[in-house]
């Protein structure tokens, strides 16, 4: 088997998905995921995350574009792909009258090289609920059962559609631990989420989806770096914006004023902040409500959502 580290195990080219009613959920996206990488599709509800993942899982045929998972078309070459992938749907279903263990045993019979069901239930913390009927599980426990089944066959590629939605804080941390452990063992993970911290913590690279298109992509640091850092403060009594040193020389790329509050945007945070503080020191004034912050993924995310809404 080819275990080349730079091998792309997921390749998506110009992917489109139009539903029966004519709604275009995915509007031409391309990305690739290397072996052993954790890749996150980040986006608000309706951004096209699930529509994309379902195509990657091979549940439907794309309207247009090309997908390769482990070198195969996941829809037409199902038999070649499925034994090597695991999937957790955003909303998976299990017969409500089966117990947790019966469900896992059934699934194990359908998975190549399945691990012992109880071992996997242990892994997700469901072993002591093995004898309980699925209908009696909480929403979070159901998500963990779903995750357990996705892990049963030790997949090379794992698709997780909003794996932590509906989990409490502890459950979310446990799932993150699990994903990190999988990544360390070389599993390629593609996950969707609308939690920024989840994408930032887990993903080596991510793509922000908005209205069916990729609005930004790269490592969390790269996506963040494309965003300006911010400095805001209250103008001292008797001073005007014109009294500040020339903003261009401070590396400021834009500013706005709201009453007495000034907000500066900069890609050279240290230079801008130093310049501003040196000026204040020399002028002998105090900058009240001073706030200096680096760009964050959150700002990138919110910025993208807001920008496109204005454009639309």
């Amino acid at each position, binding site marked *: 088997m080819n275990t080349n580290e730079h091998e792309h195990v997921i390749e998506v080219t110009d992917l489109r998905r139009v539903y029966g009613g004519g709604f275009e959920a995915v509007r031409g996206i391309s990305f690739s995921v290397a072996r052993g990488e954790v890749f996150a599709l980040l986006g608000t509800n309706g951004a096209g995350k699930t529509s994309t993942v379902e195509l990657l899982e091979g549940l439907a045929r794309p309207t247009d574009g090309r997908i390769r998972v482990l070198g195969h078309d996941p829809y037409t070459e199902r038999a070649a792909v499925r034994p090597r992938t695991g999937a957790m749907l955003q909303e998976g279903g*299990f*017969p*409500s*009258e*089966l117990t947790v263990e019966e469900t896992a045993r059934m699934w194990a*019979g*359908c998975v*190549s090289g399945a691990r012992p069901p109880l071992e996997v239930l242990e892994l997700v913390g469901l072993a002591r609920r093995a004898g309980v009927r699925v209908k009696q599980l909480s929403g979070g426990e159901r998500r963990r059962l779903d995750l357990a089944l996705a892990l049963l066959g030790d997949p090379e590629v794992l698709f997780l559609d909003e794996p932590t939605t509906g989990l409490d804080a502890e459950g979310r941390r446990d799932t993150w631990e699990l994903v990190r452990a999988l990544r360390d063992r070389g599993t390629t993970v593609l996950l969707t989420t609308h939690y920024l911290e989840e994408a930032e913590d887990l993903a080596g690279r991510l793509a922000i989806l908005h209205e069916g298109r990729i609005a930004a992509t790269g490592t969390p640091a790269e996506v963040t770096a494309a965003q300006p850092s911010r400095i805001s403060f209250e103008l001292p009594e008797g001073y005007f914006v014109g009294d500040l040193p020339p903003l261009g020389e401070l590396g400021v790329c834009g500013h706005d004023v709201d009453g007495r509050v000034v907000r500066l945007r900069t890609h050279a945070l240290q230079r801008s902040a130093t310049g501003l503080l040196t000026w204040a020191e020399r002028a002998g004034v105090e900058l009240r409500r001073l706030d200096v912050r680096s760009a964050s993924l959150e700002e990138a995310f919110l910025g993208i959502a807001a920008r496109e809404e204005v454009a639309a």
Partner: protein
Amino acid sequence: MSTLTTPAGRLGALARAEFTLLGRSKATLVTAVLVPLALPFSLRSVVDDMDVEEAGLSVGTVLLPAAIGFALLFGVYSALVAVFTARREELVLKRLRTGELRDVEILCGTALPIGATGLVQSLVLVAGSTVLLDLPAPHAPHLAALGLLLGLVMCTALAALTAAVTRTVESAQVTSLPFVLISMALSGVTVPLEMLHDRLASVCELLPLSPVITLVRGGWTGTLSTYEALGALGTALAWTVLAVFAVGRWFRWEPRR
């Protein structure tokens, strides 16, 4: 590389789970097991009043095909419409489709326990009729067996097709009614086609379940000519192929949203 699963292994795992579920579903058990066993005997007095001998039949050759018809309609068809609909609405089918199971394995595995129940039930009915109704040994058992097997496959496929137009498990009782009623009245289940007007009978012969009942009955009476037997087999086969093709084309794997 780990050992790959086999179709038989996957089918077995799914069918085993479905067997467990069947045992836990009281409503399905009642329709699937009790109704087909109880209904024929309620027909007994009606059949006694019919001039069945004039049509070359006996109480046994009227009641046994009727009972097998009920087993196929209630035990297999109606029960499976409900099961397919329930699994789809619970998103079980969608989840299964993310795995290694092929679509046809998912449908067969889900249907297997109920189909097997229908088969066993039919055999019990044969044994029961032989003992209680003095039914002689069949003259052409191969025709009866072929008819029964085609009937099982056809009813399974028609159930999947009916499930495609069924929104909820509750409405399954309504959507499965047309095929059940038409078959009961016009496919020789309650009234043997031999006792209908020739012209009506020749139309009714073309209905899906008619050839199945004809083959089962003919298997016992031995009165089917080769031409008639082949005609019935052809009709049954045509409906079965058509139904299976339609399932591949129109089956719904996910709930309508």
